């Protein structure tokens, strides 16, 4: 059987709360990163607070609708980002979110590799029927990466984001189980 957590460039991990908090607190200070990865206004939280969130999740036990991962490189075992899946178990839909906080690892295929693992996990382990995501239209790198992972553009909510005084669209993408299975058999996206 496949190693679900190991790709060609990265692996998916569960990190200790302290380490995760230390990295995320640093990534939060990079507002370009935040504005590529997130739609909410940028915020700064203490390491203590971020650590408490992770610990609270551990306390409350596994949430069957929530799969949070960290991303580590295979080559130097560096913690570079996160990937999370939120499931709708009734309708078999997974929402995925990803962020590569370490800028040195942008545009080199690490995020794409992690996303491929996330999608594979949703279909091969969680039994989902589709995987969904949203991104900002100004994030061209993300769009290309998601297409490589098998996602198709399904539409755009017009001008729903206001940043730096400019209105931009949110793009919405999805990949269906059957489509993804065909891609695995070598079909061209």
């Amino acid at each position: 059987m496949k190693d679900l957590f190991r790709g060609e460039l990265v692996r998916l991990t569960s990190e200790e709360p302290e380490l995760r908090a230390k990295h995320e607190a640093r990534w939060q200070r990079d507002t370009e990163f935040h504005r590529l990865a997130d739609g909410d206004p940028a915020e700064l939280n203490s390491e203590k607070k971020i650590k408490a969130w992770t610990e609270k999740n551990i306390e409350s036990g596994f949430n069957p609708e929530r799969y949070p991962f960290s991303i580590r490189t295979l080559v130097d075992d560096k913690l570079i980002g996160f990937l999370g899946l939120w499931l709708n178990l009734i309708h078999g839909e997974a929402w995925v979110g990803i962020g590569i906080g370490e800028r040195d690892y942008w545009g080199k295929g690490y995020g794409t590799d992690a996303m491929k693992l996330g999608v594979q996990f949703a279909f091969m382990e969680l039994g989902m029927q589709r995987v969904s995501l949203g991104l900002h239209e100004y994030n061209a790198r993300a769009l290309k990466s998601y297409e490589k992972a098998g996602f198709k553009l399904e539409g755009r909510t017009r001008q729903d984001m206001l940043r730096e005084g400019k209105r931009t669209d949110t793009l919405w993408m999805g990949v269906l189980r059957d489509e993804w299975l065909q891609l695995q058999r070598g079909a061209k996206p």
Partner: protein
Amino acid sequence: MFDIATQLFDGQDIRFGPIDYEKDPEIESKWTHNAEFMRLYEFEPARPMSAAIVKKQYEKLEKKIEEDKNLYHFMLRARDDDRLIGKAVVSRIEWASGNCQLRLGIGSADDRRKGYGTQALKMLLRFAFAELNLFRVTANMAEYNEGAIALMKKFGFTEEVRRRQSLERDGRRWDLLVFGLLKDEWLNQAQA
């Protein structure tokens, strides 16, 4: 239309009102026993709810409104006899970008196709654009919800996203549609 004396909560045959903890739970409990209504209004599984459960939901809702400050919830009532007809909601307001989600439900089949939905949406749009000063509104619905889709088109919403096969019901997959309307589009129509 933009006269400050215009009552935001009064329509022609209907009005927006607050929750009535005495009378509403029993009526909404009846709606929840109708799976058709639940499947039009909710993506969550249909489940019948007793008046006691509905009352508890109201309490939770009002607490959430107070804490989150991104939700407005109205009960729809008939103006002639004040009976509860449905619900109209502005939720998930993103204040920084001026976006939100709209939801509208007419509880009983007897009250559908009477223009109440049209009146309610008209009031809800005025509230969202002229009182909350939002920039755009968004509405999600299943592709089988023909009444809601027709209503969106009537008000000039654009079908922006078709999330393929996002819902599973009756043993098959259905698309989920996302409609959007911008403030300018609404203004142009309101003036026309």
